């Protein structure tokens, strides 16, 4: 019975992970964690007008351009994922 419980708890957890993108778990790889961090940061920059202004001033770009580049970078902020070990 206990295994069954664990089973249901797990599906719940999985469901929660699917629902709340960016939530970590025990088997998270460094790459995944870093990618989540970067995506969170990038969307936070876009979401806070003052941060976006700050970066736009520093970089000499229009805010619209800055926002676009940040959103573009969310696709793959930390480069491609590492090769998975075959075994």
């Amino acid at each position: 019975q206990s295994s069954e419980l664990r089973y249901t708890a797990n599906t719940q957890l999985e469901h929660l992970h699917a629902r709340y993108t960016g939530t970590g778990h025990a088997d998270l790889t460094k790459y995944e964690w870093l990618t989540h961090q970067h995506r969170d940061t990038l969307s936070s920059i876009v979401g806070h007008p003052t941060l976006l202004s700050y970066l736009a001033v520093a970089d000499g770009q229009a805010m619209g351009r800055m926002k676009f580049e940040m959103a573009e970078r969310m696709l793959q902020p930390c480069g491609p994922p590492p090769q998975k070990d075959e075994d």
Partner: protein
Amino acid sequence: MHLYNLTLQPPTAVAQAIVGNFSGARTQEIIVSHGTRLELLRPDVQTGKLSTVIASDVFGSIRSLAAFRLTGSTKDYAIVGSDSGRIVILDYDPKTSSFVKLHQETFGKSGARRIVPGQYLATDPKGRSVMISAMEKAKLVYILNRDAAANLTISSPLEAHKSSAIIHHIVGLDVGFENPLFAALEVDYAEADQDPTGEAAQNAEKMLTYYELDLGLNHVVRKWSEPTDPRANLLVQVPGGQVASSERFDGPSGVLVCCEDHIIYRHMDKPQHRVPIPRRSHPLEDPKRGVIIVAAVMHKMKGAFFFLLQSEDGDLFKVTIDHDEDEVKSLKIKYFDTVPVASSLCILKSGFLFVASEFGNHYLYQFQKLGDDDDEPEFSSTSFPSFGMAESFIPLPHAHFRPRGLDNLALADEIESLDPILDAKVMNILPNSDTPQIFTACGRGSRSTFRMLRHGLEVEESVSSELPGIPNAVWTTKRTEDDPYDSYIILSFVNGTLVLSIGETIEEVQDTGFLSSAPTLAVQQIGSDALLQVHPQGIRHVLSDRRVNEWRVPQGKTIVCATTNKRQVVVALSSAELVYFELDLDGQLNEYQDWKAMGSTVLALSVGEVPEGRQRTPYLAVGCEDQTVRIISLDPESTLETISLQALTAPPSAICIADMLDASINKSQPTMFVNIGLQNGVLLRTVLDPINGQLTDTRTRFLGTRPIRLVRVTVQKNPGILALSSRSWLNYTHQSLMHFTPLIFENLDYAWSFSAELSPEGLIGITGSVLRIFQIPKLGMKLKQDAVPLSYTPRKFVSHPANQYLYLIQGDHRVMSESAAEKKLQEMRTKGQKVDEEILQLPVEVFGRPKAPAGTWASAICIIDPIEARTIHTVELDNNESAFSVAVVPFAARDNELHLVVGTAADTLLTPRSCRSGYLRTYRFTDEGRSLELLHKTETDDVPLAVMAFQGRLIAGVGKSLRLYEIGKKKLLRKAENKSFASAIVTLNTQGSRIIVGDMQESVHFAAYKAPENRLLIFADDMQPRWVTALTMVDYTTIAVGDRFGNVFINRLDMRVSDQVDDDPTGAGILHEKGQLSGAPHKTKLLCHFHVGDLITSIHKVSLVAGGREVLLYTGIHGTIGILVPFVSKEDVDFISTLEQHMRSEQSSLVGRDQLSWRGYYTPVKAVVDGDLCEAFARLTGSKQSAIAGELDRTVGEVLKKLEQLRVTSSGF
């Protein structure tokens, strides 16, 4: 320590602007979001000026705004997406002039999170639904409707989520009355996350997806999804739908997809049209650089529509679509005009374009024409194969245009904005000023300015003319009650009176019936068409037919002062008696039979204006030499009986009764204020109870060193009071609250209202023997700005200890320096390439400089004379160098001669932060500081972001290392170094041998220089990782810090540790102490913490009023200027914190954010009271005010007085 945070200047940056009929009237209004503040602007169609109707703090961060209107309605609502995890619908209520929250629906956690909606909003043009979306995955659709009572209703949310999709933009499609359709630009990253080769990410497609809200089934379906240009960034709604009556299509529907270099018209199952975004044909333009659209607006007129799209250079393009019913024939684009780069564009039906600039001042333009019949080249999709989509993955050939001055638009109004403030200093440089000025380095790129801010109202002088003598008073008067404008100016001299008539010219007149051989005490237009002059010997009542009725003073007595209104006259005689006159219904001035003996010489008198529809005002205020003010009844039942008495601290010099609206006291009708000016320059403001004539709620204010004179004037059709002392102050009602602000103008000896055709709302005043006519154009703008234009983005500036000049460094990334540009042009010329000289002549402050690749810099050091408000010298940096830090350093090795040290770096890249070489440039001041002479350049291995004078040497933060330099003949010589800082040193401060080092990411370190061992040692740091942007020392052990996320906090080092470090001569003790938490051996303690909501760019410890307490003043990048005031007593802390608690429950945030969690965004608020919230007390309804005041065991007046006192004593604002 307990602090009170007060915003002196709210943020002026506009994050977004929307247009609509928010008040439900015919005129359109604009709602702008200042990030943490909502403001409603109303354009005056006649004058083309924008005025603020209401502004309110929302205590949250606004991320998106949208206007919508229910079908058939005439009123627009505003929907707000914020970081509250809630969607809020706001209604502007014109009756109470406030925003009302109609609906607030919670859908997620608070905070600007990746998957919590709030970032984007899209509305259905028919007002049936709204979509709110996050940066990733989450999209919610709400259905809007009205119930039986015509109230707006909102449904529960319908999900349109797509996991692992990054959302670039969403927009509502115009489909008429078919099911509402929303378009989204999405990129799916699921595959890219799994593909180690990186190919999937390379080939990731940007999808244009349609979501349909099925109103019948009440759910959202993904209707259509097709890949579009991978560099698309923005969607624009295209009109569509059929007109019910004629069955004709308004437009083809669909969207414009704005991509890098292209605009694509796109709709489900329809052919695409593509046009290039034209580029400037500037010789230095980089052809490889992509251009994107950053702002767009669509405008529908009768039977037609067009788009204005703005590129990142500020060029506006007019885009039109030729269509036959719902079929697109061609998409056309042409250059329209160039305006500053906008965060939002709004077109008003009255023919105005509002440009909410992303940086700098905002502008309102008027359309002169729509660019229909000019010879500007137009680019059409029909001139390319398959409407430009033949090879959609290959860019179209470049299209070019020649930028030119404004042709289709004309400037109508400008709203000053400080955004971004990059550095500031508070100093008192101006001569004859008792309060300091705030100097700010503002703006970005070629539109940058250096501004001097002074507290006060700006005054616009229209006439200034010399008079034959020195008058002691001036009045203006109409001839009859119904005249729109004044006819006479009356000047009183010591021995006579001069009357001038106002016409085409202003000239002297003789036959007015006024006595010219004696000075005048008062002038009044009385009754319907008579005039009245009070002079020391009597009162002249000049009837309309020039007959004069004169009342003469008995022998041996004179009139010493007088007060008048339309129906009443009171004079005080030298024998300390009052004589009262009242106009009867026949227009005769009747004397009241009894004279009132006051027992003490009367110094000042005042009656209020006669209230509308009344015979008289019932109260007279009399100020006597025995330091009292008495309220005397003028009621027929109890004429000249004393009602109440108030004792003063000095003899009064002037009294003025005025009925003015102050919503904090009474929202519905004006309050009667008795203003008493004393001879010692103090002004008392008391409220006169209209029922029993008692004086209550006394507030005092020090105005200046001279005896005060008070004049009742009219400002913007409302009564105001001009108080004249060694400074002139205006007391006025603005946005239904009372304000008291100094005028930035020369001292006035006397003043009066002045109304003529050319200046209907003017004032007239005398200064010595000069007569001046002036206006106050911008009420509510409490900071007057004087700007000096700069050529590049300012970075930092310093003052010189011996002269008044300021040394400012400026630099721009992605801009070629003048010399590099000239060199390149010269190269092109010699190669025989055609160079368009005309374009090179275009003013850079409008058009900007051509963009260059990353790593290109233009920079300069300039010397500014703040008094003359001009740049006196500029040193352009060559060699692709840019300046990052500056300091004035007295080098002990050169007999403490002052030098300017500028930290620069060549070929700097921002990400990753690197440079070819850093330099410390050492300049000597020449020509008394008016110019600079370069002594030498010292190379460094990283960018020197901070430099500072330290004990006759220079200390520099070069990347991660802190270095001490001594001046040498050819170079600066490195003497000591500490390399153990975490990321990069950004701020330096010092006291004694202590150095406070602010790190870019790792908060603040306390370091000490131990001279005997020549060591720089870190002995304490912070426990939290803070991204320091600004820092100041409050005292030897305490620091006030601002960080990148909008927090200000105060840290303190334990006194014991501080002493211990100072007592250790060699620093050996510190060196061998064990580090704590992988850092320094000692930690600072957090004393206060507060989230301001704006990125702090500078922080200063200053005193803002003469003799006032020191406060912490900070500036924010969005133009915020605020102060933190230390409380003086525990009682105050308890009182104000309890008030804040009550306000939290009464005043809920307009965006639905919890105030306490907003102010504790990253770290819980500690020991700081939110003054902006407390001051909202003044706007609460009377019943709520008294309920809160009751809880606090105070009266409402006492609470308001405490709040005002906190503001005035600390800032003078």
